[in-house]
């Protein structure tokens, strides 16, 4: 079989990516003029909220792809080796979006608008006992330090793991070398997973997102956020795999691999729903005022449309559409579902951020779509470049054969 090892970025691909980025920049500018530059703090907060939602969402999604790589490395999951380079290329977006996101977060934290992070306002902290109590955790120094450390750690560890993967491209390994190689991979993947557990799966969502509603807390929050972005991450991988397949790349990947990606999306959509239900049901049932304040505007207030629509997209659609075997092996259905799920979880993040900022009406989503398209452009651009830099098949990896003969 003839294998096209190198992905070449076509002109059209580049134009689309750059066009999307331009749309994103225009949307940010537009949002700045209509909201950010206004004197009203609530309007300003709308601008920052949109940036926060989009940058954090896309950062966590591309980083979840790195988590997928590390989790499959630890489990010796060989089936995904045939498209492993795709996942790696997507994870190359982490440093880029990480820097964008870091700058936005620090600007929000140290800026003059404290609508988003009320705990960053010294005046409010003085008047509020619970802010004072939490100030050991919710303070500017810790926020900035931990944010910078986290983004740096994700970027560096991801870089190391990608480098490890490419280091054997030119030299076939003997059995002994292969064992050693797997062990090095395992160690680095384990380090990443531990870092991941201490950041994305716990402290980072508390700092970045949960602290918008600083009086409210849920022990489920970080896990829930992770589940949300993990499904979206796998959907993103699926999209790129299908795109490359349609362009006659990735000869070794076939319906069997797509089927398993579909299973992942299906399973983790249900997993997400389980976490969603656990969080919602408990708070709804217990009905403690300080807890229900979070869900009141979302489930019953003006955001209820977004909230339940998001739930339908993220739960009912995958369970109904992806249940059958045929749909998981169908390129069209899978493309549709992947886009739907990426959008659904984006909507989830929208309703995590905005109800705290805009209490009397749901902000027009058009601007946010524009910003989101900008980030999609960044992902397309960076991933395309990363794909063209390395061979598309990790041909010397010890598990590649397992992936070639893989069937579900």
């Amino acid at each position, binding site marked *: 079989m003839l294998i096209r090892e190198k992905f070449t970025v076509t002109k059209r691909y580049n134009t689309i990516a750059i066009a999307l980025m331009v749309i994103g920049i225009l949307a940010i500018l537009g949002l700045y003029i209509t909201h950010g530059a206004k004197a009203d703090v609530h309007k300003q907060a709308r601008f920052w909220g949109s940036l926060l939602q989009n940058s954090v969402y896309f950062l966590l999604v591309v980083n979840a792809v790195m988590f997928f790589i590390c989790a499959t490395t630890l489990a010796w999951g060989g089936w995904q080796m045939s498209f492993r380079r795709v996942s790696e290329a997507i994870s190359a977006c982490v440093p880029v979006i990480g820097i964008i996101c870091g700058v936005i977060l620090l600007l929000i934290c140290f800026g003059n608008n404290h609508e988003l992070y009320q705990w960053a306002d010294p005046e409010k902290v003085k008047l509020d006992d*619970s802010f004072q*109590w*939490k100030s050991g*955790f919710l303070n500017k120094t810790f926020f900035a330090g931990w944010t910078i450390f986290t983004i740096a750690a994700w970027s560096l560890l991801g870089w190391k793991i990608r480098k490890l993967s490419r280091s054997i491209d030119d030299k076939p390994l003997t059995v002994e070398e292969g064992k050693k190689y797997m062990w090095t991979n395992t160690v680095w993947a384990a380090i990443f997973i531990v870092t991941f*557990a201490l950041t994305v*799966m*716990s402290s980072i969502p*508390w700092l970045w997102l949960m602290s918008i509603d600083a009086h409210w*807390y*849920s*022990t*489920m*929050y*970080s*896990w829930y956020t992770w589940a949300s972005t993990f499904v979206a991450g796998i959907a993103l991988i699926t999209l790129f795999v299908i795109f490359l397949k349609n362009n006659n790349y990735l000869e070794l990947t076939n319906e069997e691999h797509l089927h398993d990606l579909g299973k992942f999306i299906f399973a983790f959509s249900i997993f997400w729903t*389980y*976490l969603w239900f*656990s*969080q919602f*049901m*408990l*708070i709804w*049932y*217990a009905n*403690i005022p300080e*807890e229900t304040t979070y869900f009141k505007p979302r489930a019953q207030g003006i955001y209820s449309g977004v909230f339940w629509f998001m739930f339908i997209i993220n739960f009912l659609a995958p369970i109904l559409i992806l249940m059958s075997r045929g749909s998981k092996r169908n390129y069209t259905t899978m493309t549709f579902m992947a886009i739907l799920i990426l959008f659904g979880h984006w909507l989830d993040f929208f309703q995590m951020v905005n109800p705290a900022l805009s209490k009397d009406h749901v902000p027009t989503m058009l601007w946010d779509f524009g910003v989101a398209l900008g980030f999609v452009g960044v992902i397309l651009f960076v991933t395309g470049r990363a794909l063209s830099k390395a061979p598309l098949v990790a041909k010397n990896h010890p598990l590649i054969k397992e992936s070639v003969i893989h069937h579900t």
Partner: protein
Amino acid sequence: MVNERLNLEKEIETVREDCLKPTRKWGRSTKIWIGCLLIVIAWGLYCYIHQLRAGLGVTAMRNYVSWGLYISTFVFFIGISHSGTLVSAILRITKQEWRRPITRSAELLTFVSLLFGGIMPIIDLGRPDRIANLVIFGRVQSPLMWDIISICTYFVGSSVFLFLPMIPDMALCRDRLTVCDTRFRKFKKWLYTKMAIGWKGTKSQWHRLEKSMTVMTIIIIPVAVSVHTVVSYIFAMTLRPGWNSTVFGPYFVAGALYSGSAGVILGMAAFRKLYHLEKYITPRHFDLMGRLVLALTLIYAYLNLNEYWIPAYKMATAEGHLLRDLFSGSYSIVFWTLQFGTVLLPIIILSIPKGRKPLMLAITCIIIVLGAWVKRYIIVVPTLLHPFMPIQEVPGDWSSYFPNYVEFSVTAAALAGIFLVITLFSKMFPMMAVWEVEDGIKIEHDKQRAIDIRIQREAEEARSRALETDPGIQPIKPDIIIG
């Protein structure tokens, strides 16, 4: 070829005999063991009757702590019952070949621990007859109602899940019963015949069995998850500090999987030793199960982090009292021993390959199982001692709790009951799914054959290549190779 076939048949015959052997003879040690269990059960029954006649006042439970050891044990037993689904269903779905010799004991453990777990809340009632009120006047809004429904569903499901793969084995027992002499032969004959439900091993029967197994495997997983989520809701839906936490559902499920899979390992180790199954349950099985427990322990440790870290960050008044009591107060020694001794220590031990050797693993699993039990106690009791509003006009000593002899005796009887049912079961039915192990051997055999054929073919090719260059070498006749 013929030789190979004979070998295979001989091998399968040994498997069958090895599996059926324990069901044929009751040794003296078995009888003594059963006698001891019966004594414990009898004493527990006596204590329970005492409790029934005199009321719950004979236990240490008072107004503050009304869910003591009984309910902790209930949660623990339900947790152990997750073992069967995990090992059996998840490993079946992911097509793990090594699961074959251990599925039966895992499924049995689910069945039995669910049986006794379900009884515990009834024991906790001063008037057990009032359980009927739940059915007569039950309200759908009540978590207790959900609990009854989900546990009953799970019980029915896991019984079917245990029974389905037993059908071909029952037919085997039925057919082989005439060969050997045994006591209760008539009864056994009747039982096996009934349980085999006319199994002949025809193609359509196999097809139906496999289809229903697939369906059950898929159904039982969400049912199992829902059961422990709902069990956690009994606590989490109650407005109590430390319980009303959104992560409680997954936290309980993870805790259940962690203790349940450790329970399976203990069962494996015991049957391996007692019934001489070393040939089938190998150190490799222990190694793999050890890895599984390690992964589950890590998840459990992570959820512990969420469960205690976030409330600690909030430290609201009532939660603050509870957490201070756990972190540095009267329960701190137990709490930290549990966190370090039964979560962190197993992680360290299981990370080392030597820690996953059968003996070491079994010891670690005893620690895990005991730890999980005490942990349930630590979840249930301290929270009850710290209500949002203090209970008024009660004696001061009611604000502390330690179970008394009645509770210990009844709980011990329940544990003995579990052991008794498992022992009797293993003396009546094969403890390994015979046909599944046979299938495994056949698959292994086919694989070996495919490799042999390939080696031969390669050798032949090399020969014919050599033949082209050097005509002096004689070609092998193809029929010899196939034969």
